[in-house]
């Protein structure tokens, strides 16, 4: 199917669900792309996965009682996020164990609840793998408004999120409320997941959070650029994925994720500074930048070398 035909289908009133699905998919990809930057940079992918699973019982309850899915999922995700934050105060267990316990429990609860609904196998599959049909008009507004709120909070708290991501102890010493900001960030991740679950599915939503941001990270060393690039990549992949899945009758969620993965692999190979191709063509890349404080011989400690993504042989000021 050519892009023109796809455009025709989008405008065809008989296929009104298609533009709605496109709008929801693109909006949620944009929101996930922005939030995903924090998820990737803070190494929170596991938490993102946990939240994605833990919204499931809320979705299931909302589905069984005929309530709003976004609202139900948000409440369940936020409840889990708070439980994780509270349980993590116990020093005997590490946070990832707590998360492992709670998110599988939440997912199990969702499976049990949704089994009570008639036609349970079909709805379960819809939840797990996404569906582009049957999105109510109201969801367009819910997704749009929720997404706007998430982006607004990111805009307002960006400085704080960066500060606590760089080093928590110094942030605490500066009087920054690390615990509450963590909680807010978990809630934002939850909301981004919930608005995305409908089209892409519960299992695959992690890709929407992590892959665009990880791709953007390969392409830039600037946080601002990364946070613009990730939603752009996510949005375009959602559009492309929907087009491909509609043309060849493939599952939408899976197709969007595969498109994202393809973009990630391209960036891995061809990224201008960190890609395989760029590395191969750059001999002597271990050279250290010159130090204006005359510490030119100051190689970093061995233990620091692995946190150093790519030392550039740039002379000072050349990259400013």
């Amino acid at each position, binding site marked *: 199917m050519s892009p023109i035909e796809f455009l025709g289908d989008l405008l065809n009133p008989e296929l009104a669900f298609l533009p709605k699905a496109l709008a929801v998919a693109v909006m949620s990809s944009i929101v996930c792309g922005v939030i995903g930057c924090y998820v990737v*940079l803070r190494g929170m992918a596991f938490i993102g996965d946990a939240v994605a699973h833990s919204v499931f019982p809320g979705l299931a309850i909302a589905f069984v009682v005929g309530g709003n899915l976004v609202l139900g999922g948000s409440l369940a995700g936020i409840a889990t996020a708070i439980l994780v934050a509270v349980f993590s105060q116990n020093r005997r267990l590490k946070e990832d164990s707590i998360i492992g316990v709670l998110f599988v429990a939440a997912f199990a609860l969702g499976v049990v609840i949704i089994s009570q609904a008639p036609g349970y196998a079909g709805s379960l599959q819809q939840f797990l793998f996404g569906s582009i049909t049957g999105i109510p008009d109201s969801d367009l507004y819910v997704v749009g408004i929720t997404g706007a709120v998430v982006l607004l909070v990111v805009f307002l708290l960006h400085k704080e999120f960066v500060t606590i991501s760089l080093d928590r102890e110094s942030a*605490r010493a*500066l*009087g920054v409320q690390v615990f509450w900001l963590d909680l807010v960030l978990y809630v934002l991740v939850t909301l981004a997941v919930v608005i995305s679950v409908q089209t892409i599915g519960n299992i695959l939503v992690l890709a929407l959070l992590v892959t665009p941001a990880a791709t953007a990270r390969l392409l830039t060393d600037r946080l601002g650029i*990364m946070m613009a690039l990730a939603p752009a990549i996510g949005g375009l992949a959602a559009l492309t994925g929907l087009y491909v899945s509609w043309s060849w009758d493939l599952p939408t969620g899976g197709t969007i994720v595969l498109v994202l993965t393809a973009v990630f692999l391209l960036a891995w190979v061809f990224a201008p500074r960190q890609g395989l191709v760029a590395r191969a063509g750059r001999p002597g890349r271990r050279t250290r930048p010159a130090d204006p404080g005359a*510490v030119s*011989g*100051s190689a*970093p400690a061995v233990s620091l070398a692995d946190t150093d993504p790519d030392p550039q042989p740039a002379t000072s000021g050349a990259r400013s």
Partner: protein
Amino acid sequence: MSDTGTTAALAVEKVSVDLGGRRVLHSVDLRAHRGELVGLIGPNGAGKTTLLRTILGLLKPAAGAVTVEGRPAKPGRVPVGYIPQRLDFAWEFPISVANVVMTGLTGRLGLARRPGAAQWEAVADALDRVRMTELADRPVGQLSGGQRQRVLVARALALQPAVLLLDEPFTGLDMPTQELLSGLFADLAHEGRALLMTTHDILSALDGSDRIALLNRTIVASGTPAELAGDPSLWARTFGIGPGSALLRMVQAAA
């Protein structure tokens, strides 16, 4: 340790701290005046980090009090600059040197407020002070160990603190870099700040500090490097070592 009459920039008075039900610090007395670089030396597990966290107001002492410029320690409320160990910082984060230094002002700016001209000026001054101005736009992941340490110092300086706390600033750095940093720390102190620095590098501490405090659960001794280096028994007591120890020979050589 005599108080010279002026209020100390940093005063730790009879501070005891419990961690997990165990007394980690016992009746610690420590002062640092403006213009003074104090080295804090002790073995692993002596409570150095606990003491720093208590001074920052992140741990509540079970007894005693910490005051900064006469005011009780409280995170974000008193002018203390904290310089963590380099490994505690997420260097892989895609952020420029200047923006890292700006995060030092996050607490003071408050929620939802963006930095203005005054804040960027403070950042520029701090970078200038540690001679990192030329690298202001460089992503921090591309810096050497010594440069990274200076970025952390600049971030702490952005608040124009009266007291600077340095946690093991020399770990993993080569000697020339250590010497340059030592010079910077001494200058920062002598310009009118109080610096408290924990270190395992006893030679650097003896060489660069105005005063040294030996810590093992409590302050074993405090005095000028010359005074302490002349009394090996203090070091033996602090580190729990015998007379044949290489550490003692090193201290005596420095005396």
